[in-house]
């Protein structure tokens, strides 16, 4: 506990504020409660969120806000893993426990599986992980290889990025690319050109964490451009609205990348509410917050839209769920305003 607080803040998960000019987080200056009604009836698909770091409260709020399905990409859990077993446990939680937990709240959970760029730099471990990846990427509900790509843009990162592109090609799975925080523009271009070099169809590749600097090139080359609405960064949802106004809805998608950092699992519904109030047509909003993600990742053959479109509420009392996160027959929604907890 002798570390300085600042040491802990220099390693954010998906975004880094390079020039230290914090935008006021956009979700603070509008009252969410006042905007909720604007998105009544919308369904949302968050194609990038790390639920392993989130609580059941988040699941409850997400379900209430209209999020019906999520994709959880395999990524860094905040500190390096020291052995193959922790990778196995982590991947297993993505296809197992986390999926089950989410189902208890009526949210369909998919994932992408990959060796993340940060940990690609540990060559011995990376080799071992590559050996077990085939046992994971073919599993049910695995909708892609991801999130892979560059962090520090080292040679090892490139090596395992290329190997995993080949794996995705062989398994006929989409690829989800994590673009680096530092030197983002170059890293993004490099990721795309390597993917093309390996013969991947750009419409099978989703490039995550875009900004104004990268979006045009990503779309021009035929890739999907995903945007992460993450507070305290340069990509707030006000600017997201401008991007949609400028580039339209084709191949653009929004995600929260909510994880163990200061992040917001309601980033998509909040952005949608903002778009509604800015007069963006509903069909455009639906595309960037729902349909495009499905279109891109359904290429895996692993997404059954009926699983989350039919409005069949989850039944946590079903007998096979007998022992669940809902201990002793709790209900998935309880009155958090009540003093009694019973």
């Amino acid at each position, binding site marked *: 506990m002798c570390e300085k607080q600042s040491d802990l803040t220099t390693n954010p998960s998906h975004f880094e504020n390079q020039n230290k000019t914090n935008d006021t987080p956009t979700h603070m200056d509008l009252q969410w409660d006042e905007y909720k009604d604007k998105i009544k009836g919308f369904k949302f698909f968050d194609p990038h969120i790390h639920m392993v770091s989130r609580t059941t409260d988040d699941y409850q709020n997400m379900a209430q806000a209209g999020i019906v399905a999520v994709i959880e990409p395999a990524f860094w859990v905040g500190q390096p893993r020291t052995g193959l077993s922790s990778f196995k446990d982590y*991947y297993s939680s993505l296809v197992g426990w986390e999926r089950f937990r989410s189902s208890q709240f009526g949210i369909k959970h998919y994932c992408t599986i990959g060796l993340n760029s940060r940990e690609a730099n540990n060559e011995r471990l990376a080799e071992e992980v590559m050996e*077990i990846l085939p046992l994971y990427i*073919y599993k049910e509900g695995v909708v892609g290889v991801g999130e892979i790509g560059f962090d520090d843009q080292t040679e090892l990162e490139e090596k395992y990025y290329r190997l995993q592109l080949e794996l995705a090609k062989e398994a006929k799975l989409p690829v989800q690319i994590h673009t680096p925080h530092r030197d983002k523009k170059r890293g993004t271009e490099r990721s795309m050109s390597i993917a093309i070099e390996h013969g991947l169809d750009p419409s099978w590749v989703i490039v995550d964490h875009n900004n104004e600097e990268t979006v045009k090139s990503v779309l021009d080359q035929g890739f999907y451009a995903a945007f992460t609405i993450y507070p305290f960064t340069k990509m707030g949802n006000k600017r997201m609205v401008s991007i949609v106004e400028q580039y339209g809805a084709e191949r653009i998608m929004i995600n929260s990348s909510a994880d163990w950092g200061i992040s917001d699992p309601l980033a998509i519904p909040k952005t949608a509410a903002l778009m509604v109030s800015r007069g963006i047509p509903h069909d455009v909003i639906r595309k960037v917050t729902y349909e495009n993600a499905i279109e891109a990742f359904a290429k895996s053959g692993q997404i059954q839209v009926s699983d989350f479109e039919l409005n069949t509420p989850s039944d946590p009392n079903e*007998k*096979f769920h*007998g*022992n669940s996160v809902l201990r002793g027959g709790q209900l998935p929604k309880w009155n958090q305003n009540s003093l009694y907890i019973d």
Partner: protein
Amino acid sequence: MPTSYSSYFYPLLKKHTTESEMKWLDSIPKDNPNALMTAFVKAPRFLSKTIIQEELEYQNLIPNLPGFQVNHWNFVRLSRVWFLSLLVTLPKDELIEKIETLFDTAELNELVALFSSLPILPYPQVWLPRATDAVRSNMGFVFDAIALHNPFPYHEFPELAWNQLVLKTIFNEKPIQMIYGLLERNNQNLSIGLVSFVKERWSAGRDVPPDVWQLLVPYLSEGELYLVETLFKSQRKEDVIAASLICSQSELNSYQLLGTKHPKFPEEIKNGKWDWSKLGNNH
């Protein structure tokens, strides 16, 4: 060399799968363990999850494995267990390593298939710790795969683990009648656990599944008479029937006497209208 039961599964798969599904199943090289393992994982990409609804002949698929049944499984589960049955001819160490890897990397449905396959795998002592662990699983399907319609616990579980399985089944509100060998492995220690379970439930204002009492009948002493008296006072008809069943089956005078004070159901019990199986939640 361990017995492979693979030949029992093949006709059933062939009978139900489509031509293209069968083509995929036939295309897997059966002598290549890695191909079998990947096929085990990939199966849902090539097979439907149609549920097997078979006549009685398949309720006990393998004649010298009583209790092992595949009814209500889906094809993916059946084909996965078939793939595993093809692995058993590997040398012991290799087989253990492959199965352990599959366990370590398994998702829920794969775990279900793995636990379902335990009765047909050799070296049961090797899988025992995983099986007893599965009883503690928070995932309902996994629990069901080991606890219900599976003869492995009956043959391999030590008493403590067996009792844990029965208690957990009751706690999870699942039908104890689906536990293979339930009455054969009934025991005194289980009844001690059940009595405290009953008291705990009642103090929380909750019910006890009525068919649970059948496990207590042989072990009830005078000291527990008050429990059955309480049971007679229940608002639920099935509780009162259970109390009557206890009294009609008990060898103790005090219980028999208590039974005569509640004359309605003993008559119907005698006529065969009620027995424990009719009180179970058979779903």
